């Protein structure tokens, strides 16, 4: 049943329907199909243990409550009702939403500019910039937060030293009005290079012919960036946005570390994830914590999905 494949035959992707059939027939079927199952089994097992089981268990737990009398009882949606009324959770959600609205566009904008600059060929020492801007990604969030926390701080902060040297009054970056921005800076520092590389990788695969056509039309670097590169980057930008949205809602490491440097500013419910953590481990409210985690997961998935849909809709509209 196998079709010998002619060398250099076009791949199925993107070509006319008739050329698709041999492609699909060339894939292993029948007895070879069971090797597909075999090869996929480890992943499915890990997936069940690492993601599905905790998810189901969280959902299960969220329907119970531990009572002083009668032990653990089924309470239906009581925990969810409580969560929807919970001012602390709401404040945390608003805080990460604000964070997302400002930090994500800033970081992705910087990453985009850097990727375009490196790809433009106008840059001296381009490889140096590529790796140098990426390096913070390899630094653990804990180390990044500690380091920036020290830089911000009064005790031996570099920011204060530079401010003093210039005779400028620096604000208290660990104070309540600056804390969210300070955390945003840490996250930007950690991930701007990573996002830059994702975008840069997408730029590298733009077909050469497009540039040649643009050059014949007399297009300059800016015109090329605007008319060829930006549209080509749309899927990669969308992917980066979705990941950044998820990361923002999940904010935990950075504020949790900052808490030790500014305990009065970063409260135990500063972000929803910190709230879920502290409910479980400092309040022993495991069931309620599970409900908060489920709500957070749902909100994240919905927002991430919305970003994806609105992004790809725009893509189709073009």
């Amino acid at each position: 049943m196998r079709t010998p494949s002619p060398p250099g035959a076009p791949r199925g992707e993107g070509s006319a329907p008739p050329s698709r059939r041999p492609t699909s027939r060339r894939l292993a079927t029948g007895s070879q199909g069971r090797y597909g199952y075999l090869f996929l089994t480890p992943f499915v097992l890990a997936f069940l243990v690492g993601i599905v089981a905790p998810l189901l268990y969280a959902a299960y737990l969220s329907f119970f409550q531990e009572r002083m009398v009668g032990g653990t009882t089924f309470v239906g949606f009581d925990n969810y009702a409580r969560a929807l009324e919970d001012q602390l959770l709401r404040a945390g959600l608003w805080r990460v939403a604000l964070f997302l609205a400002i930090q994500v566009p800033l970081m992705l904008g910087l990453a985009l500019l850097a990727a375009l600059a490196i790809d433009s060929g106008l840059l001296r020492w381009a490889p140096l910039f590529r790796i140098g801007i990426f390096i913070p990604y390899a630094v653990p969030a804990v180390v990044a937060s500690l380091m920036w926390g020290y830089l911000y701080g009064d005790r031996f902060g570099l920011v204060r030293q530079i401010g003093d040297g210039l005779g400028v009054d620096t604000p208290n970056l660990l104070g309540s009005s600056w804390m969210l921005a300070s955390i945003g800076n840490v996250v930007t520092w950690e991930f701007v290079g990573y996002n830059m590389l994702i975008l840069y990788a997408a730029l590298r695969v733009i077909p050469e012919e497009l540039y040649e056509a643009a050059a014949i039309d007399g297009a300059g670097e800016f015109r090329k960036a605007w008319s060829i590169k930006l549209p080509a980057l749309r899927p990669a930008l969308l992917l980066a946005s979705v990941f950044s949205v998820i990361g923002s809602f999940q904010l935990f490491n950075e504020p949790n570390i900052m808490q030790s440097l500014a305990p009065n500013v970063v409260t135990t419910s500063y972000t929803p994830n910190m709230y879920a953590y502290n409910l479980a481990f400092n309040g022993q409210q495991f069931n309620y914590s599970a409900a908060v985690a489920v709500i957070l997961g749902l909100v994240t998935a919905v927002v991430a999905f919305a970003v994806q849909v609105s992004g790809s809709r725009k893509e189709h509209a073009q």
Partner: protein
Amino acid sequence: MRASANRHRRRGTRQHKSTPLTAAMVLMLLYTLLPLVWLLMASTKDSGSLLSSFGLWFGDGFHLFGNVKDVLTYDDGIYVRWFGNTLLYALVGAGGAALIATIGGYALAKYRFRGRNAVFALVLGAITIPGTALAVPTYLLFSEVGIVDTPWAVILPSMVSPFGLYLMRVYAQEAIPDSLLEAARIDGAGELRTFFTVSLRLLGPGFVTVLLFALVATWNNYFLPLIVLSDPNWFPLTVGLNQWNNLATGAAGSGTTTTGFYPLVVTGSVLAIIPLVIAFLFLQRYWQSGLAAGSVKQ
């Protein structure tokens, strides 16, 4: 004429370079690197000059080696233990994740079987499932099973990488021609043998990419180990370093700040960063081509 000039542009030769653009990028490079320079400088200072000297230059005396010795010997060498734990979690967790994702992505790309598309759709959906939202439920589940406070509690959840599977599926589609598998089958090679002798080699750059990013995820993991581990002997570096920081700032509950701990935190941080930075620098060619291939069909 213009077209050929353009070709040169892509190769980066004979193109005039822009000084303003380079200058702007230098600013960005300073932003990403200066904090690390500060950290390196800080690791050469004792606690006195750490608090008093200018951050971007050396302080009184060169205390790097003394600091390193302090880090490695404090509390009977607990840091070395943390380092070993981190290495264990990263190698087993990330290595496992990369291997599992590679075999799985290969299966999805090169075999037809029922449920193939359903699995892939499910995994794509799982990419948007917040990893850290699972941490608290994972703790509760693992304490039911009784593996809390063991290495398994950290390693098992890091073995699954939905994004890795996605990347490897795309990569396998591009990197392994079906005709090659055909030829191997006609030669009578079994599917397993084909995978290990033919396919795995072609999947190399993709594998390295997934491995590196999984390594970062596990090496830098903080939330999950913080939750599922309470015995300091099993801590990874991230949790341990934060414990030291709490001792330094007095957040540990003792009420007294111990500035003597700052050099430990700073120097310990430097040592914790080095392995990943080296891995990324040396494996650049592999992971950059892996990323490029992954972006073809995003």
